[in-house]
């Protein structure tokens, strides 16, 4: 049990360090690839993110950026073939729910992910189920419907690229991505 918890902690640290490159990411890339194809569409989401980022400086979001405490934990890991939020994540869920409840303008995307085993489209459905599980928990504890959006990526964006269980357990996850952070 201790070993499992320690492992969980390690995974969280790994995931958070990976996560820092996540928030504002890739607008440039998306824009560039859109331009290359001659389609302006892909740029839209990127601009929205950038705007929220500027505004957020005036709404006291320092908490989110502190790098410590339960709010800094943005990745929830899941057991194989399961969408249950494990009890060890309760403090983390409560902290995010309370933060969202007290910052009604803040929105977040819940990104669902699966490990690579099995069929890719079925994994999209599985990872959505995980994201909905996190959404339910946050809603029950005070987050409003309009604050949360779900995107399920299935096995398409692994956190770790290996083909064995130690990698897979880091890929079965939901990432809470706050707009502007």
């Amino acid at each position, binding site marked *: 049990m201790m070993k499992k918890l320690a492992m969980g902690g390690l995974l969280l640290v790994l995931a958070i360090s990976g996560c820092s490159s996540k928030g504002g990411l890739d607008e440039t890339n998306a824009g560039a690839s859109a331009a290359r*194809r001659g389609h302006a569409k892909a740029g839209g989401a990127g601009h929205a993110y950038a705007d929220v980022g500027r505004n957020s400086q005036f709404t006291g979001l320092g908490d989110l950026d502190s790098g410590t405490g339960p709010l800094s934990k943005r990745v929830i890991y899941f057991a194989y073939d399961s969408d249950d939020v494990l009890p060890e994540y309760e403090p983390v869920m409560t902290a995010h729910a309370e933060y969202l409840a007290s910052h009604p303008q803040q929105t977040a995307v819940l990104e669902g992910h699966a490990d690579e*085993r099995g069929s890719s489209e079925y994994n999209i459905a599985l990872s959505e189920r995980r994201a909905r599980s996190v959404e339910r928990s946050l809603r029950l504890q005070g987050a409003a419907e309009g604050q949360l959006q779900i995107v*399920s990526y299935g096995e398409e964006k692994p956190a770790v690229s290996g083909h064995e269980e130690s990698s897979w357990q880091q890929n079965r996850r939901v990432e809470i991505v706050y707009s502007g952070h």
Partner: protein
Amino acid sequence: MITPLRFSLWLGFLTLGLTALARAELTVDINQGVEGTMPIAIVPFGQEALAGDNLAGIIAADLKNSGRFTPLDEVQMPERPVPPEAVNFPVWQSAGQEHVVIGQVVPGVGGAAYEATFTLFDAIRGTSLLSDRIPFKASDARHTAHRMADLIYQQLTGERGISNTRIAYVTASGAGKTREYRLQIADADGQGAREVMSSSEPIMSPVWSPDGKRMAYVSFEDRKAAIYVQNLSTGERRTVSATPGINGAPAWSPDGSTLALTLSKDGNPEIYTLDVASGALNRITRDDAIDTEASWSPDGRSLVMTSDRGGKPQLYLVSATGGEPQRLTYEGDYNARGVFSPDGRSLAMVHGGEGGYRIALMDMGSRHLKMLTRGRLDESPSFAANGRVILYTRKDGGRDQLAMVTVDGQSQRNIPIRGGEVRGAAWSP
């Protein structure tokens, strides 16, 4: 009681059946060569006019890849005639070769830069079975070889060849901010790859329209899933589905008018059909479970889909207009991504078991399930137009690859692909 009319009908059926049986036996006979395949010799072409591509080598590789031929090694050939009249049949008979192909490339007349001529001989009877002449430009040399391979294949098997078809797949490379997903199309042998579109966000599930002119795929380029249909010659494309939640698993109806797809806009993943021209949406499934990965039966009347309504993912058959789904698979705890063979008689799928996730084939008549591959992480099965070979993705030895397996499971090979991990595969019509 058998009435006279019925009796004569029965007789008719019996005769038909016997004819089919005789044909089947004949086919089996032909196949009982080396390793159950037909020996054939593709003599190096006289092609001083054309540098670079070795046409005979390409034809031989194509025929070998079909799983039905064993081309003779060049070093074992008893002679290398170029003009048709130079063939010495007895030496080929002695070498155990029933069929011999010779050919040459000469400068073209009119607009074409080159002209390829070739002849397929029956070395036993000493007769010509097929002779053709194909004008081509330099950039089409490989395609010309594929066309010749398909003509030879069709002549000797009575079935359509698939060497001159294409495959689509998604590659992913880089990490973090340099992550790049590319939707690509290549010839069926993996050569001549070109990019259809690229994005820093995932691209998934490419599928060819039945006429091969358009492709539907899922792209996350707007940081959420949407389904696009792109014209492959003009590059023009449009968004056909961008509802909240999942927009996934597009599948073209056989007539090309409708896409089956998975949407979760109503709370959980359900199968819908979308009239591509009008945008009219029809909901097919209603269940709290996951319903996804629809694929059409060749007659366009039914869809096979993956559902976990029974607790584990299994394949179900449902009418394309909706109704109660019927469970198709019972073997094992994981059967997903079912796709019908072009004749509708079998269903390829991803079967999960003790050893891993493999490509399996189910006979729709007997419901018998046969394992075709032995990988740990095989997925994304897609049939060749003639139903003889299945394209799929595999992850073995730390590499993500494209591979092909014949439907008898006898022949399996990797397709060399550049550009990173391969994540989805679709064979063109």
